Structures are given as C-alpha cells and as structure tokens.
C-alpha cells in the first residue's frame, strides 16, 4: 500500500513540479503581491499587508477607463459575434453548392497572421497624409464627412475595435456552429415538416434548443476571451493605449508591470485579481442561466 502510494506520487511528480512552479506559485504570489503595500521589487520589501493596492487601482482614472473600454467591447462583441456567426452558419448549412468554398473563406481570418489583419484594418480605417482610408472614401460617396477612426473621437475608435474583434473571433464561432447545426439529426426536421411547422418555429423550437449547449459554450468562452482582450487593441492603436484612451484591463496590468509607467507589480496584481473576480462572476452567471433548460 505504502509503496503503491510512493509510486503514484512518483508518476505525478513531473506534472506537480511544473504546475507548481509555473502555475500555483505565480498565482499565490500574485495574491500576496496584491495585498503587500509599498512593495519594492528591487529590495523585495514592503510596508505590510492591506487593501491599499486595490483602492489605488480602483481610483486610477486609467484603470476605470480600461474597465469601461473592456466592458463596452465585451457587451457589444460577444452577442453580436455569436449572433452573426449563427446567421452565417445557418446560411452555410442551407446552401448546397460551393459550401466547402464558403466554409474555407469564412475560416480564413482564423489562420491569417494578426499583423496582416492589422495592416488590412489600417488600410481600411487609418488616415495618412496620402489617404483617408477605404472607409472614409466610401463615406465620401454618400457625402458624409470623413472620420478619423484611429486617432479621432472615442465612439469611432470603439467602433473600429468592435469591428476588429468581431471579425477576429467570428471564424471559430462559425466553425463550431456549423458543425453543431450539421449534428442535428435530419429526422427532426422531417418530423417537423410533416407536422407543418413553420420555418421560424423549426428554428426557435428545434434547431436553437438542440444547439444551445454549443451556443452557451461560445458565449462563455467569448466572454472570457473578450475580457482578456489586449493584443487586438495593440494591433490597431499601438502600445500606448492609455494615451489613445483605448486601454483594456489586461493592457493596464501589462502597463503596470512593464509599461513606461511600469514597475508596480502590486498594482498589476490587484488589477489582475479584479479582472479575475469579474470574469468569475460573469462565468458563474452564464452557467446558472445555461443550467435552466428552456421548455
């Protein structure tokens, strides 16, 4: 019995060591940092434990702006991208000819390099000395005044950000939803057809409930992913997100650690834990809703 236990631990050892060093220890460390007031990373000393870091972060206008940006992006992009993906998937499912071709086209953004995508968006939106950007050219056709999407008003920047985010997350969602739709047994549709069910009712009463687990999966992972947004913002607005007013929570954490105003692991840790609390709460709410089966 004892030797068996030893053996078991031996087998577990590699995983435990790596998880311990690279996962558990940093997590605990972040928790400790976030409560250590006036921590100095050079001397590895602090004044003591307390909630000052949280209070500082929560009163920092940059952090509040980051929270606002993140929430706006999450609330707009998650429902929109899921809904759009569902529409595209339904469309793909209902066509017969060229289905594979369209599937490939819709999946392309997923395998496209982020920098290339960033470049495309720049061509579309950025004002340069030579061009106003493709979108502004199109706006001018309708006699609308050009908008500076990258350095202009807040709503324009959020608009670009949301378009970009939706575009980037769409392919994966389409992929998941097309396979979910394809997995619904044809016989249900036949049965519904014999009973004279309208197309809308087939969708709301049969298709939607049957793929709802996949939709919930996409919403939950979508929320988590969108709350962790950072690199997409950098791709469009550059590294100085605070100056652009487009920072996100993760961006704030990064800035606090390594940015120009960085070197504050305690503030970064506190911000990270606040993000964790937000994501955790939202995920719990999502799970609670998904448990309630629609009847």
């Amino acid at each position, binding site marked *: 019995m004892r030797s068996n236990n030893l053996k078991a631990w031996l087998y577990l050892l590699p995983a435990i060591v790596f998880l311990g060093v690279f996962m558990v220890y940093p997590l605990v460390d972040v928790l400790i940092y976030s409560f250590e007031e006036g921590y100095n990373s050079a001397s590895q000393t602090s004044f003591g434990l307390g909630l000052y870091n949280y209070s500082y972060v929560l009163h920092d206008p940059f952090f509040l702006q980051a929270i606002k940006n993140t929430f706006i992006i999450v609330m707009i992009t998650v429902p929109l991208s899921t809904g759009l993906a569902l529409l595209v998937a339904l469309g793909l499912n209902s066509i017969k000819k060229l289905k594979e071709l369209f599937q490939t086209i819709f999946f392309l953004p997923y395998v496209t390099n982020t920098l290339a995508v960033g470049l495309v968006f720049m061509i579309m939106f950025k004002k340069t000395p030579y061009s106003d950007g493709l979108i502004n050219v199109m706006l001018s056709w309708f006699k609308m005044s050009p908008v500076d999407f990258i350095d202009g008003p807040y709503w324009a920047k959020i608009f670009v950000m949301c378009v970009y985010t939706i575009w980037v997350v769409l392919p994966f969602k389409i992929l998941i939803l097309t396979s979910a739709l394809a997995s619904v*047994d044809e*016989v*249900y549709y*036949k*049965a*519904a*057809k*014999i*009973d*004279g*069910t*309208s197309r809308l*009712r087939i969708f709301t*009463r*049969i298709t939607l*409930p*049957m793929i*709802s687990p996949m939709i919930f999966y996409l919403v939950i992972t979508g929320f988590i992913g969108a709350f962790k947004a950072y690199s997409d913002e950098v791709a469009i607005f550059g590294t100085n997100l605070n100056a652009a007013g487009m920072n996100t929570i993760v961006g704030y954490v990064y800035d606090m650690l390594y940015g120009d105003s960085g070197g504050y692991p305690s503030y970064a840790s506190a911000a990270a834990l606040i993000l964790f609390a937000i994501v955790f709460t939202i995920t719990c709410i999502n799970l609670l809703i998904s448990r309630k*089966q*629609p*009847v």
Partner: protein
Amino acid sequence: MKIRLEHLTKRFPNRNKKIASDVIAVNDFDFEIPDGKLIGLLGPSGCGKSTALNLICGLEVPSEGKIFFDDDDVTTIPPENRGVGMVFQSYALYPHLTVRKNIMFPLENLKGEQKLSKEKMEEKVLEAAKTVQIEELLDRRPNEMSGGQQQRVAIARALVKMPRVLLLDEPLSNLDARLRIQTREEIKRIQNATGITTIFVTHDQEEAMSISDLIVVMKAGVVNQIGKPQEVYDNPVNLFVAKFLGTPPINVYDGQIKGGKLYIGDDEILGKDYVKSVKDQDVYVGIRPEGFVLDDNLSGTKGNIKAELKAVEVMGRDTSVVFKHKASSALSRAIVTADNRINPKASEVRFNVNPKKVFVFAKEGEERLI
C-alpha cells in the same frame, strides 16, 4: 381513407457518377390500399420500402405516377396538408421537450381557423396519450423512458392531429425481442381502436405476417405480391416471396419435372397426379419445413426422400430435424410434431411431403409453376 397508387415511380441519380442510369427505388407501384386496414410493406433492406413510405407521406416527390387519398390527388400536396401522421424508425422525439410538449407540437403548428385553445390542446394530448396508454408519463422527457415507451409517444404524436393515414417506418426495429412482440400487438390494437388506415414498413416477415391485414412484398423496387399474409404464405408467386416468408425459411432444392413426376435429385417426391400441365424441365422445388412428413420405416413403409440426418433439435411443441439432401448445397430443416420419435444417431432419415407445402419454380425467372 383509401389510398390508391397509380404507376408510382421514384428514381434517384446514381451515387456512383460513372454509372449514368438512375437507381429506381420504387418501380411502377400500382395498387390500392383499402380503407381502415393495417398494411405491412415488406422487403429486404434497400428494396425501396422507406422510399415508398416517404412518397406516400410527401417527403419525397415521385418521378412519375400519382397518389390518391380517396379521390383526392395528393401527388403534389406538401406533407403537412396531406393529413398524414408518421412515426420514424428512431422516433424523432424532440429530446428537449417533455412528452406532453412533444405530443402537443403538431397541434401548436395549426394556424388560422384550425387554431385550438390551450385547454382543447391539453384535452387532445391527453386523449392521444390515453390511446397509447402513456398518460402517466406526460411530464417525462424522452431520455427518461424506455424504447417501447418512446415508441408509444411517437405514435401518440402522430395520432394527435387525427391523421387520415398513419405511416410507421420500421416501428419495431429499435426494440428488444420481447418488447417487439408486445409493441406489435399494441400497434394492432391502436389501429383497431382508431380505424386509421395504417401502413408500416418492415424487413421482418414475422412482424409483417403477425399483424398485417394485407402485406405487400417488395424486391428491388418492384411489388412482387400483395395479399393477406396467410394467402401469400400459402401461395407465393415466385421463389423470392417463398423464400422471404416463413421461419424457418423454405427449403429449396434443384429438381426436375420428368414424365409428369416431380423429382428432387433422384428422389421422386410427387407422382403423376401432381404435375399436370407443365412440360418436362429443370426446376427449383421449395418445400416448407412443415411440409415434410416423417416416414421412417416405423410402419413398414419408407418415405421417398432419402437424406442424411445431421441433427435433431427438440423445441418442446415441435421437433426440428436438420438434414442434408443431395439436391441442395444447404442444410435443410423439417419441422415435425414432437410425437415423432427419431433416433438422433441414425445416419439416414426418410420423408414424404405434403403436396400443399411444395412449390415448384421455373429455373428461369423463378416464377411459380405449380
């Protein structure tokens, strides 16, 4: 509701694109199904039975021919307007809905003047549930029920709109043996109680024989024979039908008509009176297992059929005698009453035959000769 099929044909393009010809799933169906009867559409897998059913319910559009319900031509009418109820092989119960909601589903689709009040719907659901005796299961979900119960729910859902025709696609194939016998009686009872013309598809001849008023035997898209089960069994039109009906299956031998007598191998099995108007030729001879009469020197006589005894299987009511005859490459099986005492160690067994259980088929085309 009487159903009349007129030259009904359904072709599908061949899956193998190199073959230009179409696959004919249903070939020139031309018969009438009488009102209020239970009809078994019987045939081996892939013979087009389900396609025929789909044509009748409207899920498939025929390539040629017409379908009439009484005197209404429904050929081009979509399924929802034909007044058909269908039970699928896998039942197709909506897993996320309770039994009650499942049965109510077709009623909720009704629009305009047909629209029912909530109370009326509940009433109809309860009525349908009572017909199939599942009224105490109404609040369960499909996955909380046994296969047999799900089957009943599917039938209730098909019945709730009071269809003119009830169609069942392989209704029993997903059930275990015991439940299958129970459920087929149940289907018969429900059909009797409602009086709705019912067509069911099966590849199991026993299933079809046991409950159908009329069976339609199909092979490769072609109707071979239509008739009451016993009539078809007693009077098969060709070798296929003879082979397809009956368990254990009919024994088939290479035989010969010579000088008005019927032979299998060298054994003369039926004498001059039997063969009258058929000229001498090689034939297939089919003998039902119950057509063998054991005649083994017990009373001094000996049967004309000499065969090598392989095994004697006691089944209680009957005894099954397995033997090998030279005129057939397969083992033969005879069912005799348990009163017959057979020495299982004997090497030879002797039979006579009951002429009514002997069928003669042409070598060419396998049509019935006698």
